[in-house]
């Protein structure tokens, strides 16, 4: 893992989002640097859902935010419909944000508790939409209806009058009201109960079909990511390990880290085999001083000298399935 390279990028006319060598670094105490995201590349086709999966601290949320230039990445390129976003100035970027919106993890704290639902969902329109209140309300009520919130009763209510699942629907409405091309969903269902999670995932699929949305779906739950994504990218410590069409990835993981994640995932099946041997280790190294070569080598059972000196690059294991590893798992090939 810990791989770089761009061989997995597709030459397709319908690429809506293209990210190349994206790097995000933050300054740390004592002149050190946090290498949050280190040269990752991916692309998303129109109408496609890309899942980004990995442990906490792997840089998946930072990647999502860097796409929106919040904050702008330290290096690399982000192209939306062929337009480079990293070189835009502040006001030009503000206008482009109508095309790329975000949904956050905690539905309750991402809504202003003192404003009414009507105002919260209309807020993006105050910046980039019709200003007249009745025109705004027409759009807002349409969107609220689409996400399963009764517009007329919601208009003057405030977020505390809604449950977590309903607040997440309202956040989705706020993102949709701009008619964006791409929505970045940052762990949108991880704070919700499983029954509500299923409602929101089904709704996202419906909205995707209805509005022709393209999604980047960030989550740590492998089953959730598989359910919603067309393609899945696995991240570890700021690097991309593996990317593939999702059924293929889950059937034949090629990267030892992908395999580790899958073996750790608890399936609701009492006959599933558990690997009882794992009780130790598994601490993710510090992104201030990441391991040389392959960043996963400190936890990898197959690591050797080459992994310490030479960083693996993305190589194809089968059609559309790429892995960055010197010792890809055999069953993939």
């Amino acid at each position, binding site marked *: 893992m810990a791989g770089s390279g761009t061989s997995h990028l597709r030459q397709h006319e319908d690429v809506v989002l293209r990210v190349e060598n994206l790097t995000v670094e933050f300054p740390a105490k004592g002149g050190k640097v946090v290498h949050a995201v280190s040269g990752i590349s991916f692309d998303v086709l129109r109408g496609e859902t890309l899942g980004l999966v990995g*442990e906490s601290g792997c840089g998946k949320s930072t990647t999502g935010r860097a796409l929106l230039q919040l904050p702008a990445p330290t290096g690399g390129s982000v192209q939306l419909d062929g337009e480079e976003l990293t070189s835009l100035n502040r006001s030009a970027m503000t206008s482009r944000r109508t095309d790329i919106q975000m949904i956050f993890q905690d539905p309750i704290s991402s809504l202003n508790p003192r404003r009414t639902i009507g105002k919260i969902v209309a807020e993006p329109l105050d910046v980039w939409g019709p200003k007249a209140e009745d025109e705004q309300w027409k759009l807002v009520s349409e969107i609220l209806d689409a996400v399963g919130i009764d517009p007329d009763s919601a208009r003057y209510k405030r977020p505390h009058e809604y449950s977590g699942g309903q607040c997440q629907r309202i956040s989705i409405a706020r993102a949709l009201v701009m008619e964006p091309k791409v929505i970045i969903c940052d762990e949108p269902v991880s704070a919700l109960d499983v*029954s509500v999670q299923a*409602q929101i995932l089904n709704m996202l699929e419906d909205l995707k079909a209805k509005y022709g949305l393209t999604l980047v779906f960030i989550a740590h739950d492998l089953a959730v990511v598989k359910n919603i994504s067309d393609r899945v990218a696995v991240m570890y410590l700021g690097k991309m390990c593996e990317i593939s069409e999702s059924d293929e990835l889950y059937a034949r993981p090629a990267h030892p880290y992908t395999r580790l994640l899958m073996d750790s995932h*608890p*399936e609701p099946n009492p006959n599933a085999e558990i690997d009882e041997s794992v*009780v130790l280790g598994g601490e993710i190294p510090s992104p201030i001083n990441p391991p040389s070569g392959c960043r996963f080598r400190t936890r990898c059972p197959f690591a050797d000298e080459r992994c310490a000196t030479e960083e693996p690059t993305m190589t194809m294991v089968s059609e559309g399935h790429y892995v960055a590893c010197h010792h890809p798992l055999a069953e993939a090939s």
Partner: protein
Amino acid sequence: MVEARWSPGGTSTCWEGVALSSVDGSSSTPLLSVRNLRTHFDVGGHAVKAVDGVSFDVHEGMTLGVVGESGSGKTVLSRSIMGINTASNASTTGSVRYNGTELIGKSKRELRDFWGEEMAMVFQDPMTSLNPVVRIGRQLTEHLRAHKKMSKAAATELAIQLLTWVRIPEPEQRLSNYPHQMSGGMRQRVCIAIALACSPNLLFADEPTTALDVTVQHQILNLLSQQQSERKMGMVLVTHDLGVVATRTDEIAVMYAGKIVEKASTSTLFSDMRHPYTQSLFWSIPKTSEPKHTRLSAIVGRPPNLAALPVGCSFADRCPYVQPICREVEPELTTDSTHSFACHLPVGSADADAALSSNIAQGLAQSEAAAIRRDAQTGASA
């Protein structure tokens, strides 16, 4: 056909009754025996029935999984048994017998002899359950010194051993650490070490891995089951995740709105779900074994308000099989030797099939998901 196993009158045992020892099919005295436990909170004159008549047994060396959505009362249940519901508006009634000793009604001072030494608890959030301004070493040795009257040196030695057991590297150095110097997974391991310090016979683990990454979750659960089998502890594993309980428990109790709605051995529960809530919960989970974009069978609506529970079955408003009787009569927990469930129309019975068909014909929204599942199943078998 599963239907034959269900006999409405025959084996039913009164919920309030005493003859519940056959539930576990074991004659030995259970380590923990909970009968008809109720915890109600008085909120503005209304009783919030967080736990409402719960009974179960936990035997030595066995694990009971308690599953439910948030607000189902599973956390209040474990806190009530431990006697640590500190809210002044809470009232707990019923019976909790630990090795034959009644715990309900004991004062905090009396319960102190049980906490730590006999029964211990691991809490959900490793970030807040450790004191941030006290070093790990003192938090570990505190109750060893109090309960076991150990010398400082002996307690420190045992603390190092405990940290080694829970696989914390360099335990000597870690003793002088503060919680913020450790990762979430390590802190949860410290919490487990604290819980295990006085060798309890019964461990409550309340969502012990919910705040952690899957890889760390896997390690912590392995660690808990190893320590459990070495020490022959009884364990109650409380979680919202059916995946976590599937492979880690001997028995599972499913809670909904403060009550146990279904209880069976883990293999029976997964192979022969009888309560519509258990089935709906299972269906709503995405699974890695299913192909991408598999339509999830979401449960419509939300859990009921515990301060104003509906008449009849509290799952009625969300149940695909709902019939008029469900809104009139509250179903009792029917029990045969291995399986308990509280439902008028248990899944797999002919009545339930007929109810589902008529609900689908009427276009009832809450039956839609079940209809899709049923069509998929008949399609697959055809």
